[in-house]
């Protein structure tokens, strides 16, 4: 049996659920919004993990779950907890469920996509870049500083720079233009990341266990995820094939990071040099699947259920 955790209507979770249904794999949704009607306990004894999950009064043995897919959200953003004080009984109950579920995911022998600890590398982009580089990928020349003079000197060497957040909080990637340069003194408050702009084509690679799905992304804006926010911004996605060596390197990177499922952002320059910009440990793959038809959800479903047939 497979456990799907999150909001059942959320696209990636819904797509994987649909594929499990199609494959005839027993599965159950743990709807995070139903925290008030969900109970969970687990026990550890002599290294063996056991426990019980109760969903709307129906109980399941945790030992029966062979696969777990988590798309859990920060529960403070749940509609059910809107305007709810942090220390209210309802908030506490939701936090307890989230916490207990995440702790169980760290110790269960089931296939978990993905466990919490390995997902942590994405909380610091420059930290993750160091791990990426160790796997043989090029990384953009990067400067993180609170000194505006160093940024100007860095710009003079690279002609075009982008800047973006370094933490797990999502930000729009921006080009360092004249208006940003005019605000450069603000970085004295907090070291900020600047990177050489890498020209070339964007390739998003989804790895799931031993399978690789590569998508070429062509866009006329710096951050293709936000093309819709630009007037005349356009992005087109199409399936592409990676050379075997590069595909293997992507799989090795995901394995090294401990990620069964990953979204790897590559930039391939006109002279075929491959930069790895980031590895997303909880990829919203539905955007790519719906634009290309690549069977990513099916691959995730097959991995969770333990069969590739």
């Amino acid at each position: 049996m497979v456990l799907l955790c999150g909001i059942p209507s959320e696209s990636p979770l819904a797509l994987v659920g649909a594929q499990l249904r199609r494959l005839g794999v027993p599965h159950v949704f743990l709807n995070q919004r139903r925290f008030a009607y969900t109970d969970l306990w687990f026990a550890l004894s002599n290294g063996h993990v056991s426990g019980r999950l109760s969903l709307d009064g129906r109980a399941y043995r945790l030992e029966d779950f062979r696969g777990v897919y988590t798309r859990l959200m920060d529960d403070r953003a749940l509609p059910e907890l809107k305007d709810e004080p942090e220390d209210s009984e309802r908030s506490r109950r939701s936090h307890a469920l989230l916490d207990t579920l995440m702790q169980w995911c760290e110790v269960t022998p089931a296939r978990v996509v993905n466990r919490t600890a390995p997902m942590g590398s994405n909380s610091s982009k420059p930290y993750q870049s160091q791990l990426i580089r160790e796997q043989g990928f090029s990384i953009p020349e990067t400067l993180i500083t609170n000194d505006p003079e160093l940024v100007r000197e860095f710009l003079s060497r690279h002609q075009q720079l982008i800047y973006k957040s370094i933490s797990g909080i999502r930000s729009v990637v921006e080009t360092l233009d004249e208006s940003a340069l005019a605000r450069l003194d603000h970085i004295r408050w907090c070291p900020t990341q600047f990177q050489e702009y890498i020209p070339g084509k964007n390739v998003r690679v989804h790895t799931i266990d031993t399978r690789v799905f590569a998508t070429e992304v062509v866009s006329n804006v710096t951050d293709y995820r936000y093309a819709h926010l630009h007037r005349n911004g356009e992005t087109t996605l199409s399936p592409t094939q990676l050379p075997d060596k590069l595909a293997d390197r992507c799989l090795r990177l995901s394995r090294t990071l401990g990620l069964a499922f990953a979204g790897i952002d590559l930039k391939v320059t006109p002279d075929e040099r491959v930069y790895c910009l980031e590895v997303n440990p909880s990829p919203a793959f539905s955007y790519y699947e719906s634009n290309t038809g690549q069977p990513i959800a099916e691959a995730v479903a097959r991995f969770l259920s333990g069969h590739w047939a």
Partner: protein
Amino acid sequence: MWLVLCETQDVAAQWAYLGLRARGVEPLELLTSANLAQAVSWEHRLGDKGAYTTFTLADGRRISSDAVRGALNRLLTAPSALLPLARPSEKEYASQELVSFFLSWLHSLPGPVLNRATPQGLSGQWRHLSEWVCLAAGAGLPVSSYALSTETGTGYAPFQSSLAPPGAAVRTVLVLANQVVGDSIPEAMAEGCRRLGQLSNTALLGIDFAANAEGYWTFASATPLPDLRPGGEALLDALATELTRG
């Protein structure tokens, strides 16, 4: 140059700093979170050649990664003197950016680092007690049963950090580079402690054992940020050896 990185009130780190200096580990810089919070400039570079960092402190000290040969790292969080001044809407973002920055810098420190930063802790990986229990069992240490529950009135204790019953006798050991120092424990348990250090990928690990109702010593807790002083002179010797190896 070697670094001792710690919170301002970390007396165990300051004890280790004096002990390392007495063993000739020099030049040795003690950098507290207060020092780091007042750094006037940071330069952290990444590229195909690796990582390079230079920062200048308010007292004029300039620390360059080129000169660092190892570190005892006990930082708990990213220090910032300016964070309280951030707008409320930007405080969480700024805080996470700083933690991310410190994680990258600390991870990139050259030489032996005890402990190297991870996303789950700037001075090594912090784990929930359930994970330690699982790892300890895997390391062959005697472990009591453990349970966590959301059910009302039953065992949801998210902040429980030890299996030691209140008032129980506790023995503390520290594992560093395959050496187990501190309180006396049987060799078989010491071997389990070494395995736990390896399984948890934690170079410097503190482990507590508690006497159970039958009088047997069982695993109680583990931490990447132990009080170093129970390790005594043996730990200081091991720290000096480990930091200066190679």
